[in-house]
């Protein structure tokens, strides 16, 4: 009789912890795809921005090339770390394109440029927000994977810890043009 109840208890615990890990993992994955949605929005805005800036500052080739390259690198990046680095690099190169506006008053005054800048600033905010939410989901998952007794079930069913975005203070600053 004892063995029977023990078995019931073990099966119950397994179901509970397994399901908990599954839901935590899926929450994290969903949060990650939310980050991708925002990143895609940024990819789509960049060609427009480059075209607009080119119209006013055509000989700043280096800057355009860097942004375009950073964009394509970010789009093909495969694993988490690679992608994060590429995205950070893209953010940096976008800053340099916005910095151009300081030298080109006409560009700065352009309505199209202002609109794009506005959109990109907003997208940048949204990327940060989505990453923060992803981090909070992953934190929950990682805590579960590491702490007792969930760690036993995590090992049995092979649940891994997931990686966090490091939101550097530099990156937190939104690309802005100083007037």
């Amino acid at each position, binding site marked *: 009789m004892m063995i029977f109840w023990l078995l019931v208890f073990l099966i119950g615990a397994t179901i509970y912890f397994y399901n908990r890990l599954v839901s935590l993992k899926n929450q994290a994955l969903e*949060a990650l795809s*939310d980050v991708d949605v*925002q990143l895609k929005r940024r990819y789509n805005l960049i060609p427009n921005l480059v075209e607009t800036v080119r119209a006013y500052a055509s000989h700043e080739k280096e800057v355009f090339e860097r942004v375009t390259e950073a964009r394509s690198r970010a789009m093909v990046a495969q694993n988490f770390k690679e992608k994060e680095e590429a995205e950070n690099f893209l953010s940096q190169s976008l800053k340099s394109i916005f910095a151009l506006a300081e030298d080109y008053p006409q560009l700065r005054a352009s309505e199209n440029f202002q609109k794009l800048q506005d959109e990109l600033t*907003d997208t940048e*905010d*949204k990327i*940060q*927000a*989505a990453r*923060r*939410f992803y981090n*909070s*989901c992953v*934190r*929950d998952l990682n*805590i579960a994977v590491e702490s007792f007794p969930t760690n036993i079930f995590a090992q049995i069913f092979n649940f891994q810890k997931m990686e966090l975005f490091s939101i550097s203070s530099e990156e937190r600053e939104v690309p802005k043009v100083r007037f």
Partner: protein
Amino acid sequence: MASVYENIRTNQRKTIFLISTFLCFVVLLGWFLAQAFGNDQILYFAIFFALFQSFLSYWYSDKIPVFLVGAKELSKKDNPKIYRLVENLAIGAGVQTPKIFVAPERQPNAFAAGRDEKHSVIVLNQGLIDLLDEKEIEGVIAHELSHIKNRDVLIASVAVVLVSFVAILSNFVLRLSFFGGTRRDSREKENPLGLILFFIVVILAPLIAQLIQFAISRKREFLADGSAVLLTRYPQGLISALEKISQNRIPLKNQNPALASLYICNPLKERNWFSNLFSTHPPIEKRIEELRKVSF
């Protein structure tokens, strides 16, 4: 954050409890009235009424409060800044972007309502948008989003709708007894016990309803403040927002006590022992004190 999901479950359980309490309460009220008047139809009416209102309060928990304050929906074009603020905070909190409404009130205040994430609204008073700066508004919106995420809004909005209906019902019965009273006395002597019960119920009804309501919402203001700061990472925004809101003396045009518990700060200004007894919010000073302790 794991506790958020537990919170959701507790809130759902409490909502069910609240609705069933309301059902029992109205049916009991109906039974008392049926006894007092010697008319069984009142009981049937009460049962129907209770079921109908419970359903309404759940299903239209977003629309009724918005209608009661006369708020209008805010689109991205009207105020892109506010719209984006809500959008970005909702992404950060991992909830769907709620609909945003603006109520034509000069008092700076705000509330959230709705039965779930998909059907939730944030209502900002015009005064809030006019008087607070962006960081402060961000704090307020984050507070409301936390309410939505914790499902506080479901239980609070259900309570609001139920309480308003109990108040309406008891008002109605009270009036009925005033008009009917003299005629009945001249015709024949009523059963005095029934009459006493009837008056107790009529006077107690709004009181009990109010008690149910405030029992639910006090602690979670602290919780929502905490989650809001976790979201914005900037406690000062919410602190100065709360200061500005609490120092403001502009009264609401549309004073509806049933709605009071929804707001981020109690919108009804007069304070005495009685209003404290029924207050749905902890004192602002206490909340600010808690927020000052937050550090990262």
